[in-house]
């Protein structure tokens, strides 16, 4: 299960504390549920008592010994009345059952409202909190693990709250309220009735505790089966390509057999548990029946009282038998709760003090000075970078992978906090500005952009809520994706993702670009945003962007020269440092990466000449 759960001594207290906190607002429901359960239990016990009183007053020669029964007979109008009006106790029994049913309904209703309400609240809280956690946390955390904590762990908690807690309260209430009633009826019989109750509970608790790990083993074996099938299906082509079907069959047979055998082993152990615990329960019932019969023959017990005891045990014993098992299940819920608590206790993104939200939109000036940032490893991802972008200018950033380009973008978005140096945004230090405000001044397109499982139109609209359809289409046209979208089965209403169309990398990038363009923020960040788009389309898009040049500050990370050459200035990064910086004209005459890139087109020409013996220039790249 969890590999992160803490093991300090007060860790058992923490889940209970957390649970108490989570229950706030729902405690009243629980109170009502338990009250309803209590009334239900009492009425449940009252029904056999009515039967018992009836039997004793109608068919018994001697008056019943038990004061409780005598009292009851008196309430019901006396033995004489009951004897002559047998429909009355019958109706009373039905009425009591109806009433019990009503309280059982109330119990179910309130318990569900409490447990489902808490589950909903926990889910909402987890979702909210996950969104507020810093990017640093998410870098470390495993998505699959987090999802499991937010879904199956919450479900485990819900089950615990809705059934296990109720079941255990039920069994406890049954036991507690049975004691006085039974002793009032007949002390000897009461003692006999409780002989095996302790062993029944303990047997369940310890037996299930012992075989608990087998449940996990079965799950694990099932997981292996799933893995082999999954691997086989994803590698289908490889299997066929080498005609390895028989080999795969053998590979599958093993976990399939293991799964079966483990299930059978667990089953055998459980069959012993269920049969023996049935045996104990039945022995308890037999003990009461036969010793009761004996007491009757001795004249010290009435048939009615025996009837009541048998009915009581019927009501009592089966929930009590379940209790041992339920208690072990509760252990699981504590683990689940701890795992959720770990997420909720992580600190959220920090908020700068004071006035951190400037009035009005930014102008878009960015000045980076001696910036240093490290993800925690030895070599800093960014190691003393300085540059300035004036409002409306385009800055291109060039460099090999791992040189710190994307990290720089993340720092600008305040996804991470830089360690030293400064980033001035419109003459204010970025660190002193509200993260959300900063982000609302930027539009970003990442290399592998994320689209939500909504329609394409909605995805673009995320750039600016309330944008008109015309504006969305305009943005899509600018990003050169409008015609593609038109070709989809439902136009702009086509769903993206599993349930709709699967977009190619280039299409995703263009949709994300449209989303970013719609945003109309002072700064646009393009993080290798057109890498999957073919050269011609890229040229069209850049052409369109250039027409808007001057409107907003733009930072472009790119690999292709064609992209870079549109920039006012170019910064070349390597190992987190700026190694070259200047305008296109300046860099072309400097020895270095930029110049070498620039001369590639000559190399292209030479290569082509070599193959064709032709002199004409091809595919020129020009500004």
């Amino acid at each position: 299960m969890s590999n992160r759960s803490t093991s300090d001594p007060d860790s058992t207290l923490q889940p209970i504390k957390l649970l108490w906190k989570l229950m706030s607002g729902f405690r009243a429901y629980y109170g009502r549920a338990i009250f309803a359960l209590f009334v239900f239990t009492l009425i449940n016990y009252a029904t056999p008592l009515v039967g018992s009183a009836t039997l004793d007053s109608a068919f018994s020669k001697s008056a019943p010994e038990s004061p409780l029964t005598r009292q009851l007979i008196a309430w019901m109008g006396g033995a004489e009345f009951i004897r002559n009006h047998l429909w009355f106790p019958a109706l009373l029994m039905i009425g009591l059952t109806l009433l019990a049913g009503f309280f059982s309904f109330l119990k179910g209703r309130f318990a569900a409202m409490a447990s489902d309400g808490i589950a909903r609240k926990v889910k909402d809280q987890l979702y909210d909190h996950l969104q507020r956690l810093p990017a640093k946390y998410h870098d470390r955390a495993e998505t699959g693990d987090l999802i499991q904590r937010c879904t199956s762990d919450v479900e485990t908690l819900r089950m615990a709250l809705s059934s296990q807690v109720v079941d255990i309260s039920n069994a406890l209430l049954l036991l507690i309220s049975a004691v006085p009633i039974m002793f009032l009826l007949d002390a000897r019989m009461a003692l006999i009735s409780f002989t095996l109750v302790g062993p029944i509970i303990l047997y369940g608790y310890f037996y299930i505790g012992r075989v608990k790990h087998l449940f996990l083993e079965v799950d694990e074996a099932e997981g292996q089966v799933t893995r082999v099938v999954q691997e086989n299906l994803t590698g289908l082509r490889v299997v066929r390509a080498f005609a390895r079907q028989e080999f795969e069959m053998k590979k599958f047979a093993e976990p399939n057999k293991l799964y079966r055998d483990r299930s059978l082993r667990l089953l055998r152990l459980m069959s012993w548990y269920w049969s023996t615990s049935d045996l104990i329960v039945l022995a308890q019932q037999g003990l009461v029946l036969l010793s009761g019969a004996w007491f009757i023959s001795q004249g010290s017990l009435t048939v009615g009282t025996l009837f009541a005891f048998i009915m009581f045990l019927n009501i009592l014993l089966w929930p009590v038998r379940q209790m041992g098992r339920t208690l072990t299940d509760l252990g699981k819920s504590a683990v689940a709760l701890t795992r959720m608590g770990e997420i909720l206790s992580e600190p959220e993104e920090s908020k700068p003090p004071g006035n951190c939200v400037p009035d009005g939109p930014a102008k878009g000036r960015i000045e980076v000075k001696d910036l240093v940032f490290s993800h925690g490893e030895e070599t800093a991802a960014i190691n003393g970078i300085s540059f300035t972008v004036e409002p409306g200018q385009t800055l291109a950033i060039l460099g090999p992978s791992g040189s710190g380009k994307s990290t720089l973008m993340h720092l600008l978005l305040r996804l991470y906090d830089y360690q030293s140096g400064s980033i001035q945004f419109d003459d204010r230090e970025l660190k002193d500005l509200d993260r959300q405000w900063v982000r609302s001044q930027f539009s970003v397109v990442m290399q592998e952009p994320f689209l939500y499982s909504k329609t394409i139109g909605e995805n673009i609209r995320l750039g600016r809520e309330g944008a008109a359809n015309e504006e969305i289409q305009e943005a899509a046209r600018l990003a050169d994706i409008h015609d593609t979208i038109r070709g989809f089965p439902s136009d702009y209403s086509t769903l993206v993702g599993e349930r709709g169309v699967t977009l190619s990398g280039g299409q995703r990038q263009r949709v994300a670009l449209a989303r970013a363009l719609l945003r109309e923020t002072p700064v646009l960040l393009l993080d290798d945003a057109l890498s999957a788009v073919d050269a011609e389309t890229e040229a069209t898009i850049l052409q369109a962007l250039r027409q808007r040049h001057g409107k907003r500050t733009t930072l472009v990370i790119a690999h292709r020269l064609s992209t870079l050459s549109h920039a006012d200035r170019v910064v070349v990064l390597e190992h987190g440092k700026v190694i070259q910086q200047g305008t296109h004209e300046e860099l072309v005459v400097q020895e270095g990466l930029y110049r070498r890139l620039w001369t590639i087109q000559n190399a292209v020409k030479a290569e082509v000449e070599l193959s064709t013996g032709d002199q004409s220039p091809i595919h020129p790249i020009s500004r």
Partner: protein
Amino acid sequence: MKEEAQEDVFSDRLDLKLWGRVFRHALPYRRLLIPLAISAVVIALCDASFALVTRWSVDSVVGKTEVNLWPPIAVYTGLTFMLAIGVWTFINSAGGLSNNMSHDIREECFKRLQELEFAYFDHRPTGWLISRLTSDCDKLARIIAWGSLDLLWAVCLVVVIAVILIVLHPVLGLLVLSVVPPLVVISAIFQKKLLLSSRETRKYNSMITAAFAEALQGLRTSKSLVREKQNLQEFQGLSSQMYGVSIQNAMQSAVYIPIVLTLGSIAAGIALWRGGVDVRSGGMSVGTLVAFIFYAGQFFNPINQIAQVLVNMQGAQAAGERVLSLLATTPGISDSDAVKARLTEWNRPGRPAELAIDGYPDKIEAIDFDHVDFAYTTGEPVLSGFNLTVSSGQTIALVGASGGGKSTIVNLAARFYEPTGGRILVNGQDLRDRSLDWYQSNLGIVLQGPHLFSGTIRENIRYGRLEATDEEVEAAARSVNADGFIRAMENGYETDVGEGGNRLSTGQKQLVSFARALLANPRIFIMDEATSSIDTETEQLIQNGLKAIFHGRISFVVAHRLSTIRTADRILVIEKGRILESGNHDDLMVAKGHYYLLYTRQFEAENEASLIDTLANG
């Protein structure tokens, strides 16, 4: 979520034929069916007998002077042990049956999946197929084993109690039994409601899981769009809908239980009233009355079980149909009867060495596409009237825009699909007249997304030829220049590659898959975009090994990289299922057509990329 939508089918009618077919899978375990049936009946009889023992005990003490309780004690003890043994037997036989059945069905399904042609998988996502093999198989087996047991037990119990009641007191018996029909109807209605609403809950649950996954995957995007609030609002919409259906489900059972309890109590009330009158008039004993009251409350459980099993069968019918239809699907690409006949004749030891398992020559000298038509979906042809001849030793490079049909040609050459028109010939003979197994054993394929199986590197290479020695495995790795990186790893060839090979980089995985293909020593070698997703350095390594691979085989190469393309004997520019240009590199460059344009563009991009990479590495 696609899967969920399919689970939602609820059949209104019980298809007994279908269940009969499912039940056939239980027949190998006939020996378990007998104890299963016996234990169900024994348990039902025991359950019904306890009230009789109570009656007996009461009647043997009430108004008697001579009391002998030993006979009831003995009978009670006997019943208790019989019941316990019955419970033990039924759990073991039903569980044994269910687990063995699901094991077998799963194995059959898996086997069938190995035989089915690719087209079957095109429209069935992996996740969907996995659920068929796991949850569907378990569900069916559980219903057959536990369901039939419950049904048998419940029906027996109800019948036995009914008989006892009528024998004890016909009039009162019939009166008490009158609550059974409404009990059946109400149980059936509620069980169905409960099944549907719990399904609804599961559906929302998987939507919530998807929402969490989306939140985590899109975290940076949401943060940069400052979408946190709207996201939360959307999520809250979802979680409150789930709350709604979950509460609905809870309410249904909260109403259901009191209703059936009240019905039981009405029966008990009738017994008490009418029976009480009879006891007073001396027509019935007190013990009988007590027994009647007990029996009145005992109907609920078995009838509830019957309703639940029937409803579950209705709910699982869709699963049954899916599994059975998978088992009933015949592979679209398989050996013809003529080929099968030849296989039985020739696939045996002592066959001349130059003959293959189907009795034809064991060699591949030429492959011809003869007016081949093909379409993945009817009405959308990818190839029409495609012709191509390749002979041994030749390397064919296929280039052109994506969606033009390059991969289709390769898939047809591998017989992963079959032409919808025209023929493919091997040595001038129709491919369909040769053994599929023989032909595909002659293939070596390297794909764009290299797929490795979990296990060691050695095991993965050996997948190419299972009987290869360690030396041969390593020799293959050396030929494709994979040996260097493998030896540099901590455990060398014994390094575990992780699930799907995820512990290796894409380039490393690709090198391993090249070694695997080479070890198979195939007569036909196919590379589908195999070098497009790897870095320049690995590409260089592979490039040096490719010559060795291409030598003496028929090779089909779908490629982006210029280096790979240039070495081909023939380059085909494919667009819209047709050959636009054909020739070697030099011819096509001079022609200055499509190839020329493609080449120059790619040249530029590759050079830029490698220049930036060089900077990174030094």
